[in-house]
């Protein structure tokens, strides 16, 4: 999923998936998430970064 906004204070990013739907994702397990990053998300948590912005 691609990151469209990041709230570092809350540890939450908004990500958009293949079908265009946006969800909130917990990003505590991936360091320094930035807008445009592509993340592997499972059950609302980012597990790894597939590609940097």
């Amino acid at each position, binding site marked *: 999923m691609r990151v469209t906004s990041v709230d570092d204070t809350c540890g939450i990013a908004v990500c958009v998936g293949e079908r265009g739907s946006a969800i909130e994702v917990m990003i505590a397990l991936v360091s320094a998430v930035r807008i445009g990053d592509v993340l592997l998300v499972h*059950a609302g948590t980012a*597990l790894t970064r597939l590609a940097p912005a």
Partner: protein
Amino acid sequence: MKFVDEFRDAALGEKLSAEIASIVEPGRHYKIMEVCGGHTHTIYRYGIDDLLPANVELVHGPGCPVCVIPMGRVDDGVAIARHADVILTCFGDMMRVPGGNGSFLDAKAAGADIRMVYSPLDALRIAREHPDRQVVFFAIGFETTAPSTALTVLRARAEGIRNFTVMCNHVTILPPLRALLESPDLRLDGFIGPGHVCTVVGARPFEFIATQYHKPVAVSGFEPLDFLQSVYMVLKQLADGRCEVENQYTRVVPYDGNLQALKLLSQVFELRPHFEWRGLGFISQSALQLAPEFREYDAEIRFAVPGIRVADPKACQCGEVLKGVIKPWECKVFGTACTPEHPIGTCMVSSEGACAAYYNFGRVARERVVV
């Protein structure tokens, strides 16, 4: 789309298929087990088995988290949901899993407040919005999903949300694999390692399969070329007389896993002494419960849970399917009494279940002819 299109190239698939055919020994039957529902889905969605030689058999292990939940746990969840002030939340796949007295969907129809959520974070939001209600998250999944539950529990504690608890059914993949390897019923030649679980735990924990049981392992991604390449890697190891853990899914899986996630899991959870797996029975230290520090978020402590044990219906052979002893179509009720619309067993419920994967991708007629 990047990370997708390049792993679905049909010409490359045909080339890999030919390479696989060139390294298998004629007259030898190969059995390779995958232990991830996502892989089962990939195999039948993309017709991977059609691209393999007839003597290479793919066997599905206990890798679908919905499928391994025993009926008694569903009944325990229903018992909690029947409390007047409770909102029970769960992933969509869990809604139709049959318990001894019906599914969550049946309980919802009978008046219980049971809601589907995408993530435990959604359950926490519901708790925030309904401070007068008790919100319980029915947590399922392997090590891939457990970090999400753990982060949510930490978030609940940080925000001081007291009306949120977790009924924890998280399981771990290695103990059932060891149980299968010790089983005299099953002769396996190699394993396809679960890519997403390995994103968290890494590939290293699977080394015992190679060193103690002398079976090759290839940790695999989920696109068709990922899976074909992983089958090739296992067969190549067999051809070379090697037994190692190889990582095909290097774009996602670090060999040592996600260290932050592992630290989180050890902080929030501890191993249960034992846990019942559907079809596999009780397996020691194969599931997680909240660590003592987080017991106030444990639904099984906050609510009286009956601890129901229910035998699977006699006609249902999910247990044998989950152990790879039979194929879905060999079950007595597959495609007749048991369908995705009216499932008897868990393997027919989730799209990642072996029976549902066979059924949904048109394997009913063809496989029955084979039998």
